[in-house]
């Protein structure tokens, strides 16, 4: 039996019923990694020793009759979440040697629930990108076609899930970084409400937008992981005190009578026909399950990409200032280090950061500069407020909003690397959700004629992950897209 193909809930059952051991499951996954990783290149670091240690401990728990939701479940973690004692690089040369002396809150909640850390997955450097081509180390390949990119920035996590190199994974989403790669890799990706999951230990890109979430083989697994990682954290002031329900409870409930908003601004001329058709067919499917489609308008959608690239880069320019060669991480060597402090700073950052990170630091620095602040940062905040209000208004009349996750399926490596603006548009359907701070999930809803996955995005109200999980689950259970596997 190919244990590596199991989902969390399947593995849970087999482990608890002693049909398999945690070690057997872990062995199977590391064998799978050995077999396909050369082609997929999802991981920056494998933490085998640590994984077996954690898995052994969980097996003992299971044997003593005290199981936990993730006991013995091997997961992959995006390499921008700090893991104590395990190198955390953010795919950046500037942190290539950084071993955190602390654990992120999200992963410590996984630890408390018995998971085993398989390894740390690749991403665009500091989560800035939509293809993992901005990784400081290498590009991850899309398991459906290794000539193509897996999406980004959580491309390593999405590819690892799609390639069955893990049972599930965590990613982070600032402008679509969970949902877009999930869509491009044919898996499920959930961006929770801002504040639902603690950001403590998540290396910051844009603090007001970043959010950790699950990338899984099916909807139920996303609900299981969300149960574990959610909740107020005293170490993150922006984490919300909102009650955390059991998100698996609503799965299987009817969606009859739920209103689905279809924003006209998301179905525009010139969009990929195959994507449009798949999404429209998916909406029909939801309708056949009893949901009621309603055309809505989110009139300020057109400002989202611009506002996002001002706000996210402004915050990033400040968040990344700490990588200065003084305290930890990379420092330009003694000879190349420069003759004084200023040169040490400049050489360290010039050599340590990649091109896209530098571009965003410069954009953000410019936007916050005196004399430009009002025209850029402040204007962008105003646009953000309007975008938020669009959603609030829409949610007065609908229960969720359905859109494509990405305007295209996976593109070829190198296709957009010379055109950052084209690359930025990969996130055109996902960015507004981050600006509004609301939750959204991407689930598989079809394939292109090239056999590339297409993603459906379902957007929900603040702290109403239950409704979108319920709808996503209902859709998933009535289709077979999630059962297809890439041919690796």
């Amino acid at each position, binding site marked *: 039996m190919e244990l590596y193909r199991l989902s969390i809930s399947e593995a849970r059952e087999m482990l608890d019923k002693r049909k398999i051991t945690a070690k057997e499951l872990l062995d199977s996954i590391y064998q799978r990694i050995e077999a396909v990783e050369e082609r997929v290149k999802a991981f920056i670091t494998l933490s085998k020793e640590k994984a077996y240690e954690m898995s052994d401990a969980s097996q003992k728990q299971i044997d003593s009759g005290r199981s936990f939701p993730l006991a013995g479940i091997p997961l992959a973690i995006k390499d*921008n*979440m*700090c893991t104590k004692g395990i190198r*955390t690089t*953010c795919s950046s040369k500037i*942190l290539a040697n*950084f071993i*955190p*002396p*602390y654990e*992120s809150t999200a992963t410590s909640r996984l630890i408390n629930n018995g998971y085993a850390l398989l390894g740390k997955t690749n991403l665009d450097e500091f989560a800035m990108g939509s293809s993992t081509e901005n990784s400081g180390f290498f590009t991850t390949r899309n398991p459906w076609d290794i000539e193509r990119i897996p999406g980004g920035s959580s491309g390593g996590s999405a590819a690892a899930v799609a390639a069955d190199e893990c049972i599930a994974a965590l990613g982070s989403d600032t402008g679509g970084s969970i949902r877009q790669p999930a869509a491009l890799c044919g898996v499920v990706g959930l961006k929770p409400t801002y504040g639902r999951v603690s*950001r*403590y*230990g*998540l*290396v*910051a890109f*844009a*603090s*007001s937008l970043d959010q950790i979430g699950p990338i899984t083989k099916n909807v139920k697994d996303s609900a299981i992981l969300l149960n574990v990682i959610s909740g107020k954290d*005293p*170490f*993150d*002031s*922006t984490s919300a005190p909102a009650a955390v329900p059991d998100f698996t409870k609503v799965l299987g409930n009817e969606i009859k009578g739920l209103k689905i908003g279809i924003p006209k601004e998301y179905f525009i001329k010139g969009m990929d026909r195959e994507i449009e058709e798949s999404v429209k067919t998916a909406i029909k499917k939801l309708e056949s399950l009893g949901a009621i489609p309603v055309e809505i308008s989110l009139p300020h959608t057109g400002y989202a990409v611009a506002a996002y690239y001002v706000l996210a880069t*402004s*915050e990033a*320019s*400040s968040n*990344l*200032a*700490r*990588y*200065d060669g*003084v*305290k*930890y991480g990379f420092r330009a060597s003694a000879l190349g280090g420069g003759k004084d*402090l*200023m040169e040490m*700073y400049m050489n360290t950052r010039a050599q340590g950061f990649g091109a896209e990170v530098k571009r965003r630091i410069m954009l953000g*620095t410019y936007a*916050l*500069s*005196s004399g430009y*602040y009002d025209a850029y*940062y402040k204007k962008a905040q105003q646009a953000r407020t309007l975008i938020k209000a669009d959603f609030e208004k829409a949610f007065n009349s609908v229960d969720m909003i359905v859109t494509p996750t990405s305007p295209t399926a996976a593109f070829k490596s190198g296709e957009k690397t010379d055109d950052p603006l084209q690359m930025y548009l990969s996130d055109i359907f996902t960015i507004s959700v981050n600006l509004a701070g609301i939750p959204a999930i991407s689930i598989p809803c079809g394939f292109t004629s090239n056999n590339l996955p297409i993603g459906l995005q379902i957007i929900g109200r603040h702290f109403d992950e239950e409704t979108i999980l319920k709808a996503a689950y209902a859709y998933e259970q009535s289709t077979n897209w999630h059962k297809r596997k890439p041919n690796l």
Partner: protein
Amino acid sequence: MKYEAVIGLEVHAQMLTDSKIFCGCSTRFGSEPNTQTCPVCIGMPGVLPVLNKKAIEFAAKTGLATDCKISSYSRFARKNYFYPDLPKGYQISQYELPICEHGFIEIVVDSEIKRIGITRIHMEEDAGKNIHESASGGAGNHSFVDLNRAGVPLMEIVSEPDIRSPKEAAEYMKKLRAILRYLGVCDGNMEQGSLRCDANVSIRPVGQKEYGTRAEVKNINSFKFVEKALEYEIKRQIKVLEEGGKIIQETRLWDSNKGITESMRGKEEAHDYRYFPEPDLVPITVEQKWIDEIKASLPELPDAKSKRFASEYGLPEDDADLLTSEKALAEWFEEAVKAGGHPKAAANWMMGELMRLLNEENKFIEECRLKPKQLVGMLKLMDKGTISGKIAKVVFEEMYKTGKDAESIVKEKGLVQISDEGAIEKAVDEVIAKNPKEVERFKAGDEKLLGFFVGQIMKFTKGKANPRIVNEMVKKRLT
């Protein structure tokens, strides 16, 4: 032309919280470098600040004590700049929406009360310290960073440009320091850097309304330099203008060795701090109820205490001001009065001998071994005539040094005043016999010599003779 100075002060006060403003590390001063640090105050990747509630409370207390309005909604902002002692590459501070605004402090200058406006009080984190081998006399050219201080909570208290002279600036600093110490929110130690003062200084012809171009004077690192640095800077600016020059807006450093301010010139000034709201912290909202509670918990402040001392104890205003300049001093005084000491006598001994002895040793009254009750014990011995005022000075110093009671010192040292007429008579006889010439002159009408005889007799009795009796006896014997 006659010029007047326009001065505004920016004061940084380290708050006396046990832990840092955004993490749980200790704020203790003087520990081994980098022993009071954690991932948060070192600025490691992915960590987040969590606000210490004590800091809000201390800032609000200070605001209420200076008649500020406490904002129900305020927030933090990031001030971005690169420096090795600033681990995150930005300082978390407050910018657009500070916690306190629109207050004032009253000072007394030339017997007149003057109000100095407080523009704002905001909270921020302190930076660490860079230590350079070359500067500390070492052979190497390395620089080290100590982050123990990084994240220690600060208040920045910004005054309006209401100050018109170095003297007023010094009075303002004294009053502000007293208030901070009364509240227990800052120890006010300028030498150790827990209280720092930067001054914005400009001059203008008397009568002109517009402000002149200002220079910012930094590094005033001791109380005694506040006046000196400002006096120098004002003179410098007058000289520049009188020589037909122009004042440049710049930052100048006070050099206490040379007694001058010097331009900092260069890159370090050309900062664009790129302030923006801190996304890692939620805005601070405070309820009126909480503000009212803080207000009710405020101690009696220097101005109110001084007024009360004057009316309740009948002290002259100057005495009341001096005794209330430090909370501990005022408490010491009141304890003495409670123990039965005469207010004016207690005040005199405190302002005279006690202050002198404390100053000699550079000590605070909290460190004093002499207790108020003991002063009262000594005053009682004086009232009873057991010791003279002159002996009392000896006894006082001994009490101060040893912490022993007056009574036991008097006994041990045999300092009891001699009021026994027989014993004094003996001394009088002796002195008269030894100084026949002076006796002649006195009898011939040179009455000034009375003092000479009394002095000689006191000397003969080692100061122990009751001066009243000596006086009477000398007069009686020689007339």
